[in-house]
């Protein structure tokens, strides 16, 4: 007997659902294959909703034939799933060994100063969240920064970050 929540108010948009269908083709058509869809579905849900909310959890559980608590357990295990509302844009600064040797910490802290936040926080206008990342796997071109869980920027300078924040402000992404 599943401890069920009220029916979710979140559901995939058409484009989200289309992407989900593309993922469905990758796995066997049985309960195990459906369970494999939890992480892809959470990604799609996060992209649409901004973060993994209670409703997203419930919806993904229904979609994949799994239990809401299982989905929540998965969402909390993996760092890239945001469990609470964040800024419109996220900058991840890698602060692991090589990037730190190449000055990523200073870069992060100066960026934070300019934005008026501490690492881990979101600007008051909700535009940018600054986070620390573990090794992003681009050490030869450090310091490295990831934007909105997708784009990498390498050999990053203060100038680059300033331009980046500008693009956030003008919405040219």
């Amino acid at each position, binding site marked *: 007997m599943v401890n069920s929540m009220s029916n979710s108010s979140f559901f995939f948009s058409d484009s989200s659902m289309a992407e989900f269908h593309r993922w469905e083709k990758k*796995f066997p058509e049985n309960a195990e*294959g459906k369970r*494999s869809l939890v*992480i892809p579905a959470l990604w799609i849900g996060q992209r649409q909703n901004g973060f993994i909310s209670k409703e997203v959890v419930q919806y993904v559980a229904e979609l994949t034939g799994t239990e809401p608590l299982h989905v929540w357990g*998965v969402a909390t295990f993996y760092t890239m799933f945001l469990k609470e509302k964040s800024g419109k844009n996220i900058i991840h600064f890698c602060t692991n060994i*090589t990037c730190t040797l190449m000055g990523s*910490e200073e870069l992060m802290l100066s960026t934070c100063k300019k934005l008026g936040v501490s690492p881990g926080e979101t600007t008051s206008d909700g535009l940018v969240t600054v986070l620390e990342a573990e090794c992003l*796997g681009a*050490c030869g071109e450090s310091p490295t920064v990831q934007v909105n869980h997708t784009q990498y920027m390498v050999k990053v300078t203060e100038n680059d970050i300033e331009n980046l924040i500008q693009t956030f402000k003008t919405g040219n992404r």
Partner: protein
Amino acid sequence: MAEKKIILANIEEENSHTIDHYIKHGGYGALEKAFKSMTPAQILEEIKASNLRGRGGAGFPAGIKWSFIKRDAEGPKYLICNADEGEPGTFKDRRIMMSKPHIVLEGMIIAAYCMGLDAGYIYIRGEFYDPYLSMDRAIEEAYKKGFLGKNILGTGFNFDVYTYLGAGAYICGDETALMNSLEGKRGYPRLKPPFPAQYGLYGRPTTVHNVETFSAVPAIIENGGKWYADLGTPKSGGTKLFGISGHVTNPGVYELTLGTSWKEFFEDIAGGVKGGKKLKAIIPGGSSTPILRADELEGMNLDYESIQAKGSMMGTGAVIVFDETTNMVKVLYRIMKFYAHESCGQCTPCREGCDWFYDIVKRIYHGEGKVEDLDRLEDLGKYIGPNTICAFGDAFVMPTTALVKKFRGEIIDHIKKGKSADLGKDYHHA
């Protein structure tokens, strides 16, 4: 022994990621040869003869791993490409996936044909969004050309490959944790035995290999296992991608024949320490490998045995270079911060021990350490590594123990300075 571009051949060119460019330079030729003029048993023999060892860090002989799968066993049987490159300092697999994705696919298809596998998954870490798109594009191209899908090259062999995106967990680089993650679960490593060849993805027989290991396969098939083996040393065949970063003049990924001297690589190819400073130490194979002081590198060659003889490991071949200005206490602190963040928390020694190590090292870094702490770390470490479910225990104990042993003097100086110890520029305390 020197730089030799096999995997990295032509990778600088603009369209190196396209199938046309790949084929133009001989790509998928090995696939044709394997499918049309070799039997699976012959392919296995070549891989065994090549001395190819897993390039993901464990260095397990590929030929032996491939022989674990019973080709005639009932399907489905799976192939997994471990593209969860998370070991700090490592960036070679990303290079391959971005600029030469087809070499990975070709290696996977040959491997699948040899072992009689039905489908392959490329598990890509969540941060590698662009490599994921790159692999998807390559897979689409490969299907179009008939190298994937049904009846490949008219042999009746079917093979499908799918990409999968992780979501930020270093532990999913462990092969059984990877499989749990692929199955849509929390990425906990599994108890072994059974091993993936008996019980893998969805409980089916599975072979897991690193991106680079698959990338080495086409050349072996093209030129023969012995050719590959002869490139390297008697126990370590072929070439390996070495990523070098940190305080080095020419950071980047280089392909070297195994056995190349460290001196040649570091000084001639990578340009030595940046800005002409003095070398202090290196981490040879990613943060899980013990650090080596500059004076310990005398006579070291880049192969599994030579590095092991120096007290460290090949690992992923990710070299991190530290010059004389590096604060080793900070390095120690940053390494432990990473592991404390990434421990899965399943078993007692790692869950409690890793955090304990981090707390001690953090305290030392912030000027509240005691000399006894260093002996404590060494003492605790002895009972973590042998008692954990997976290799994560060793992964944080070994580098910590090495750092403490080899830079004991510097760490004690830092401890003695107490609150006035240097924490580095603008440090950030998390």
